[in-house]
């Protein structure tokens, strides 16, 4: 079966600095996949490449079997790639309802707007209560729900969530993840980025660990939980620098 999303040997970066050295990954229809990694590993850059906000230097991005390298960001929404970006980025001066409305701006989404509103408001009763509220006046957790809801309004085939737990209280993170699990039950394919390993591994089927712009490990959640690499990537017990220094110092102490 052709995967819904497939990245092969993707290299990308900003200006002259290469961030993604070599990323290959895939996601099947209906799958929930998480991208794990420490700060600066390239997680967000990967989501930017998939949503088209950043173009690749080399390698291929295929969506439903088609190479989408030449498809600009705004057209990818029409294809069904919807992103709830890092840091939420809701429109603070718009009401909740207006934020959702503009989430369904693309042609495909506009036709199914009423149905999507029902879906989002039943998934997030909190948003329904606050539909006339200015988004900027809501709490971080509510804004995160709004960002996810706004992405859902675009009729995604692939929903990308970039650090949905960023800056939220642990109690709120549980709420957000309960909702993501509820969305997953709708049969949507979800790719999400996390630093919060515990939260991520509770709902994902599979995961990839990114370190220094490369896939350092991948596997099912059970496999990842038992890999020492995951701990290393997050707790920084072995970063790239110390990795090379460690054998040397070990040798010194052995002598």
């Amino acid at each position, binding site marked *: 079966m052709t995967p819904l999303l497939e990245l092969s040997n993707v290299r990308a970066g900003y200006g002259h600095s290469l961030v993604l050295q070599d990323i290959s990954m895939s996601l099947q229809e209906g799958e929930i996949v998480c991208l794990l990694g420490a700060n600066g590993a390239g997680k967000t850059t990967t989501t930017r490449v998939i*949503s088209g*906000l950043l173009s690749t230097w080399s390698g291929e991005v295929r969506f439903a079997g088609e190479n989408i390298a030449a498809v*600009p*960001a*705004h*057209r990818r*929404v*029409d294809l069904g790639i*919807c*992103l709830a*970006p890092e840091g939420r*980025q*809701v*429109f*603070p*001066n*718009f009401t909740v309802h*207006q934020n959702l*409305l*503009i*989430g369904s*701006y*693309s042609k495909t*989404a506009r036709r199914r707007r009423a149905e999507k509103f029902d879906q989002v408001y039943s998934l997030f009763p909190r948003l329904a209560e606050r539909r006339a509220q*200015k988004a900027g006046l809501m709490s971080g957790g509510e804004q995160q729900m709004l960002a996810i809801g*706004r992405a859902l309004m*675009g009729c995604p085939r692939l929903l990308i969530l970039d650090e949905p737990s960023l800056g939220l209280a642990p109690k709120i993170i549980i709420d957000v993840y309960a909702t993501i699990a509820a969305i997953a039950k709708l049969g949507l394919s979800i790719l999400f980025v996390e630093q919060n390993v515990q939260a991520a591994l509770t709902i994902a089927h599979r995961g990839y660990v990114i370190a220094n712009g490369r896939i350092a490990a991948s596997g099912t959640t059970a496999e990842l939980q038992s890999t020492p690499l995951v701990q290393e990537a997050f707790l920084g017990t072995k970063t790239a620098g110390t990795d090379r220094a460690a054998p040397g110092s070990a040798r010194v102490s052995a002598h």
Partner: protein
Amino acid sequence: MNMRFASVSIWVVGLLFALLTPVFGSPTMVDITFRTCSLVVLAVSWNLMASAGLISLGHSAFFGLGGYAAILAANSAGTPFWLSLLGSLVAGAILGLGLALITGKMRGIYFAITTLAVSEGLRVIAVMLPDLTGGAKGAYLIPDNFPGAFTVNLAMGIAAVGTCLIAWAISRSRYHFAFRAMRANEGASQMLGLYPLKYRAAITAISGSLASLAGGVEVWHGGYIDPALAFDLHITITSQIAPILGGIYTLSGPVLGAVATTLIGDATRIGLGHIEGASLLVFGLILVGCVLYLPQGIRGGIVQFLDWRSGRGGASMPVPADTRPR
């Protein structure tokens, strides 16, 4: 008094003023109305771009280009009045479109500087091409097709009303949301499937053509143009003072601001004209006072006052003008 009724009636009064003063007004009133209408066109046009997050520091570029387009068309080809104005519209739209394409993804201060440079560049070009533009000496309109002062005054009134209608139509359409989203966060709006360049190009073309139209009518009114007059920094500045004074990002704000700026300017000039520099000083102080005490502009002040009167100190929180529907 109902707020909706109040705003509709003020709009109707403004419309009648713009269109009927050329017919019935005294010469002084006709003159004031002409200048107000000219500023209304510029202010509303500036506000259209600002509403999409594009701050123009070069509205005189459009104004001047429109003036030259009209006078060149009339002098070289004997183009009649109305047709020459069409020339101004087209020239302004092309410049606006070009500006959007050149600036690409530039935002904020970078976009603003570019517009300033475009305006200065056009002024220099106008000086450097004396065979075409008359150079620094300027050009006089050959009055073969002069339609009469009445028609020119009426044309500015129609331009002002038309500009407001266009701004109103945009504020009613879904594009209004697209522009507001772009202003708030262009990256986020692109993630939702908006193509920012398309909307930028559209709004700069519309805004540019309207400002050019004002320049075109002004040329027929004054009969003369030169580079310093056409690409005057003063035009750029008044086209943004008016919307800021009246209420930026709103529909009626720029219009109220244009009326207020013209009237305050005239009052200080006439009242204090005999003391050197005093009129400008007082004009400036009034503007500073307005910005300090009416941060949401005249429109915001009126809305707050009406809220206060209807609620009599009820819990009406001041809402930023920006967030009001219109």
